[in-house]
């Protein structure tokens, strides 16, 4: 048997492969597997349907946020159209399922691919330029996509929205929150594995090189246009898949949710969770989803108490304000996000009581 | 020691917390002197100047050890805004004009340390030293020749009436006649304006001709110092920086020995 790995007291790696390893210790690997088993075995049984709904939303948001993190955190490009791309995925899945009768398991990845292609339309013109032109192009993408979703009525049924058939998987109809829980979280695990491993390949390293210094990256022979575009396509693919899942989960979609605010929400997830950290995206999704629910709950209470009339205290502006504030505070005070906070907490536990 | 304007005591400079470039550099500059600093590429000359002028900070560099004393106050790791207002102005390597500003506007940026004071007289002084700039005063600096630009950036620095002027390779890429002209003007500025000058040069011969004192730098250390005339006569300097054989005559390619003479100080 191979020797168990424990936390070293310094960095003693001798090979690059050691640096690349995902788990520093066997304890980490085991605890992750145990944690995952617990997640799948216990959570769906003990949670109320409402809580399960929230957990499912977190799962979907995590997938989208990981996609955005590949772009922002690893490649150093900002997308302000992630919400719209999420919408493209949702609509693609809905249209594929209703018009073509495509089964769930094909429709969702197909939605991801379509979204990636749509993303390219905005990525190609801006990718040629150095600097943050992609950000501006994605902003345009956000508005153009919103417009197309509403006005291409023959395809999207405009403001009417689309109703989806129930998703079926291996002959089973997915009706309950619980059955969707499994689908969403298995997808999440797959997407996380893909993202983590992507970052260990030459592609991932090229993304990081572009983020750190695009000129130097170009000098080292990285074709930055192609890689920037690839990162953008991958990020859109994640958004599309998440959107597709969301559409099947919601069963009925309209154009409304996919606005700029949603895009900013995803940016908030990435920043709050931790840029350039896959696990961080999940933290960010958890944080933002709970913040959302917390705000909804808080405003409900205030309205019920009668301190504010419902007209004076509407949810949306408060949410915008709080998200903005969270982004600003995290950038100013903990730019590496919750992932860093988590690391600090964890290592202080590990070192306790002999932390130097 | 009252005549000393600037003193570097054993300073070390580190970039990005890891790249140590200067390893204990000490030098002293007397008032009204021209001090020239020579050394091979990458020796750390520019870094030394930046340590003095405070321009290390924006490049993520830091003086980690030692002190820089200017007019009896320690100035290491101060911001460039502070240091320029004490009268230390650096003329950057590679000229760096403001391309989209006219010559005259470029010169006016030189008044930044004395914002609000009249500057017309200063302009006249600069034009007096660099009459070649007069016909071009309204044209964009981006379209000027290298010689004009060198005059421009030196004139720009002169606008601030520096007590200590740091010149980084003013002869870079200029024709020999222009180089001569530039060095003549440096000498005049030193004599007429009373500016103390630190002159970093690859053109060691010219630099040592106008300087009073010289330092030789290698690998982040000062390896030799002395009066300029003494340095110019030193056989090692002659061989490695002036390109002459020990005997003093110009070295031709066929005289190069098959083994390389060791630099004695390394």
């Amino acid at each position, binding site marked *: 048997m191979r020797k168990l790995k424990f936390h070293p007291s310094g960095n003693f790696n001798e090979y690059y492969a050691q640096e690349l390893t995902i788990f520093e210790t066997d304890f980490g690997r085991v605890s992750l597997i145990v944690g995952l088993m617990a997640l799948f075995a216990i959570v769906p049984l003990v949670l109320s349907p409402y809580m399960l709904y929230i957990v499912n939303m977190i799962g979907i948001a995590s997938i989208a946020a990981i996609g955005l993190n590949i772009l922002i955190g690893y490649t150093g490009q900002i997308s302000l159209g992630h919400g719209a791309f999420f919408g493209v995925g949702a609509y693609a899945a809905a249209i594929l399922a209703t018009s073509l009768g495509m089964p769930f398991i094909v429709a969702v990845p197909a939605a991801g691919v379509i979204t990636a292609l749509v993303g390219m339309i905005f990525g190609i013109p801006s990718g*040629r330029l150095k600097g943050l032109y992609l950000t501006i192009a994605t902003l345009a993408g956000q508005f153009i996509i919103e417009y197309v979703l509403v006005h291409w009525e023959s395809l999207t049924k405009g403001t009417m929205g689309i109703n989806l058939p129930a998703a079926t998987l291996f002959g089973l109809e997915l009706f309950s929150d619980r059955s969707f829980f499994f689908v969403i979280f298995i997808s999440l695990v797959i997407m996380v594995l893909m993202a983590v491993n992507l970052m260990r390949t030459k592609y991932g390293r090229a993304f990081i090189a572009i983020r750190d210094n695009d000129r130097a990256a170009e000098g080292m022979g990285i074709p930055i246009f192609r890689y920037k575009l690839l990162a953008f396509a991958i990020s859109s693919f994640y958004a599309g898949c998440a959107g597709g899942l969301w559409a099947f989960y919601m069963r009925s979609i309209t154009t409304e949710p996919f606005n700029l605010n949603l895009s900013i929400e995803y940016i*908030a997830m990435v920043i709050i969770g931790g840029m350039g950290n896959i696990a961080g995206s999940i933290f960010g999704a958890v944080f933002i989803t709970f913040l959302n629910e917390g705000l909804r709950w808080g405003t409900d209470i205030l309205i019920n108490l009668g301190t504010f009339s419902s007209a004076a205290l509407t949810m949306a502006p408060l949410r915008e304000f709080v*998200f903005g504030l969270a982004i600003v505070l995290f950038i100013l005070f903990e730019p590496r996000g919750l992932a860093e906070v988590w690391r600090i907490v964890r290592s202080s536990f590990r070192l306790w009581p002999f932390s130097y | 020691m009252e005549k000393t304007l600037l003193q570097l005591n054993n300073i070390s400079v580190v970039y990005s917390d890891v790249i140590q470039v200067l390893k204990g550099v000490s030098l002293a500059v007397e008032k009204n002197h021209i001090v020239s600093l020579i050394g091979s590429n990458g020796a750390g000359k520019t870094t030394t100047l930046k340590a003095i002028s405070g321009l290390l900070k*924006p490049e993520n560099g830091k003086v980690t050890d030692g002190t820089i004393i200017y007019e009896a106050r320690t100035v290491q790791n101060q911001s460039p805004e502070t240091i320029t207002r004490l009268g230390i102005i650096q003329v*950057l390597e590679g000229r760096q004009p403001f391309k*989209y*500003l006219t010559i005259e506007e470029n010169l006016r*940026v030189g008044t930044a340390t004395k*914002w609000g004071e009249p500057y017309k007289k200063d302009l006249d002084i600069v034009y007096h030293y660099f009459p070649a700039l007069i016909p071009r005063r309204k044209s964009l600096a981006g379209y000027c020749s290298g010689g004009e630009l060198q005059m421009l950036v030196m004139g720009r620095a002169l606008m601030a009436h520096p007590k200590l002027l740091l010149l980084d390779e003013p002869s870079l890429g200029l024709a020999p006649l222009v180089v001569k002209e530039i060095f003549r003007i440096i000498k005049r500025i030193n004599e007429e304006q009373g500016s103390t000058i630190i002159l970093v040069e690859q053109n060691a011969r010219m630099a040592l001709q106008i300087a009073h004192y010289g330092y030789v730098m290698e690998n982040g250390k000062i390896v030799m110092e002395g009066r300029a005339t003494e340095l110019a006569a030193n056989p090692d300097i002659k061989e490695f920086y002036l390109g002459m054989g020990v005997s003093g005559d110009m070295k031709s390619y066929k005289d190069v020995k098959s083994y390389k003479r060791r630099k004695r100080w390394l």
Partner: protein
Amino acid sequence: MDFFLQLLINGLCLGFLYGLSAMGFVMIFKSSSVLNFAHGELIALGAFLFLALVTWAGIPIPISFLLTLAVCFCFGFIVERFFLRPLIGEPLIFVIMLTVGLASMFKGLMLLIWGGNLHTYPDILPASLAIQLGPVTIPPVYIASLVIGLIFLSLFGLFFKYSSQGIYMRSVADNQRAALSLGVHVKRVFALSWAIASLVAGMSGIVLGIINGINVHNLSGIGLKVFPVVILGGLDSIGGAIIGGLIIGLLESFTGGYISTSLSEVVPFIVLVFILLIKPYGLFGLVEIERV
């Protein structure tokens, strides 16, 4: 024909204001390379401050106007000082996301205070100011906006061309290292460009508010339209911003008049994508002077 003229005048006026507000945006970009996504919120802030001063505090209009501008100027300073300055030296992406966060924050705050409804100013300008141009009347607000805009434009032109501070600002935009070496207060320049940008934004907010009514969503949306404007004009060209603004304004006005209003909202962004495709550095971007 009358309709056409009306649309033309409408578009020119709107475009001029777009151009003016884009100018502030370009100023920040040129001095510090920051894309300011909170520009629309600065515009909206100006409009609402003026509203508050005029209707709630009942301060006479000219004084309110100047007061609003002064407050906007200070606000720009404060934003730079407390939010942007701590990030000097950090990767640009943090700074830009910070402005995204600020935008969301300011917008939420304004919505909480003023709500999402349309407000209007009391009638400010006497109708006698209107100009009859053949069959079309040019409403007084257009005249006023043109006059105010031109005054601002020439004041800024003079400021940047002749004043020392203006020249320092341009020097920082041109070569920051060289500016530092000469003792230019680069941080002060950043702060000043935020302050001026915020002032100009506030001014265009007031005028846009007079023309279209005051609504948080609309005004902050105009802040995002500076992107098509500056991409069209070249990200770093102040003159280009004005021309880009005019083009976008006309385009929007004619699309709105002849095709559909909802399309007119996205048409600037469609143009943006096309410009990126065919002429990426804008129609009027600075010709890079390469020789040294």
